[in-house]
């Protein structure tokens, strides 16, 4: 399906940083009574725009149930349970939007787009290489883990027997994973050096990045939120 509304990876990065920092550290009074709900809503809207209906609906349901619980049920329960539930509510309201925004960033941005965005932001070369190798490596690790899991099933080290032999279960999973990962890593290094990753020239990228109207809207929102945050907290 063609994505009809594109958001630039740089905007996504800015939004992720903004939401993560501000929802964690902003007080919930004054201006922020109105700003925080907007920040909570942004990941949901973006996920809906990118056709991630399932996860967006989970997020919205969780958000709505937590807030309605806070205003309707919570005043009527007492004692330790009250404190426990309030603590969980306030912590999850702080953490969830950031996690959702991070999920949105990673699930809707391809590695080449991310690399292009970071190169346009003039990040150090080594940093970009490390980060892209890392994201390239996560799927490989999961494939390798599935094979090791099958081998462990042969040995009878799955499920309940894992609890009986926790040390063996960990050792026999971790060590093969790391051996194969470092071998694959060596091959990857050689292959990409052969293809000229270490060449000092400026590299071209397939993904063309461009700011559109929606990017400008989101960026101005971020700037306004940051200005208010600095005004309220530091002045």
């Amino acid at each position, binding site marked *: 399906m063609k994505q009809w509304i594109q958001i630039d990876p740089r905007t996504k990065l800015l939004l992720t940083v903004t939401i993560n920092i501000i929802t964690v550290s902003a*007080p919930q009074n004054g201006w922020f009574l109105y700003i925080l709900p907007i920040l909570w809503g942004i990941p949901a809207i973006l996920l809906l725009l990118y056709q991630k209906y399932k996860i967006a609906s989970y997020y919205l349901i969780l958000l709505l149930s937590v807030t309605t619980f806070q205003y309707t049920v919570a005043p009527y329960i007492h004692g330790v349970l009250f404190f426990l539930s309030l603590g969980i509510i306030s912590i999850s309201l702080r953490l*969830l939007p950031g996690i959702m925004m991070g999920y949105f960033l990673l699930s809707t941005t391809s590695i080449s787009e991310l690399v292009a965005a970071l190169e346009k932001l003039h990040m150090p070369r080594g940093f970009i290489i490390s980060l892209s190798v890392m994201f390239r490596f*996560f799927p490989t690790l999961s494939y390798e883990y599935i094979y090791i899991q099958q081998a462990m099933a042969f040995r009878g080290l799955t499920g309940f027997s894992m609890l009986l032999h926790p040390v063996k279960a960990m050792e026999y999973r971790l060590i093969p994973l790391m051996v194969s990962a470092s071998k694959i890593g060596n091959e990857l290094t050689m292959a990409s050096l052969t293809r000229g*990753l270490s060449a000092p020239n400026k590299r071209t990228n397939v993904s063309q990045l461009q700011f559109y109207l929606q990017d400008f809207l989101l960026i101005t929102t971020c700037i306004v939120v940051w200005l208010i945050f600095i005004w309220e907290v530091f002045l």
Partner: protein
Amino acid sequence: MSITLNIPKKKEITCDDYFFISKGAIHMIKNLALRTEDFMTVGIYTSIYFALLFTISLLGYIPIFNAILPALIGIFGGVPFILFLAKTEKFGMITMSGIICGLIMMLMGGNGFYPLLTGLICGFIADILFIKLKSSTFSMTLSFAVFSLWTIGLYLPIYLHRTTYFSNITVQYGAEYANKLNSYIPDWTLFLFIVMTFATSLIGGLIGTKLLTKHFKKSGIV
């Protein structure tokens, strides 16, 4: 126009070479600077460490496990990280690893910018320790223990933003409730977290070095 220098290659560069700056500064910088291969090594081994850390931190959504999360990361993260240290020989690789771990936790974990800060600081100190003490079992264990203190950054917002964290409760129910809620997580628990993380990472580092000699040296990975 570029000038090419024809400098003889020396195999091993140690930290003592810093004292001979007048003699071979260019030569040293050429060998100590991180190259593409080193950055790729960082990416590969950090991804194993981080995948493990992420799987463990999914357990953190169960309330009791949340408290022993740093301990679990210390014990299990030791194996991949010690292997990474065995492949490390230049200054800056552990710092890079710390920055990347912190950055991803910042972007995905909803913890503000504290993981990035602690990742940078702990990675840098671990780097200095590792390079200064030379590569040995002791230095590997110690620098891993220092490095894993970066996970404290995941808990810092709860301690530093206590009043804002629970400000919605203060608005609704008054300061008394919020204070009582705060008293469930007293400040000294942060110190407890630091000690626990450090101790368990020492254990994890020892396990890692044991496995390093048992498996990786035999199979020729290191």
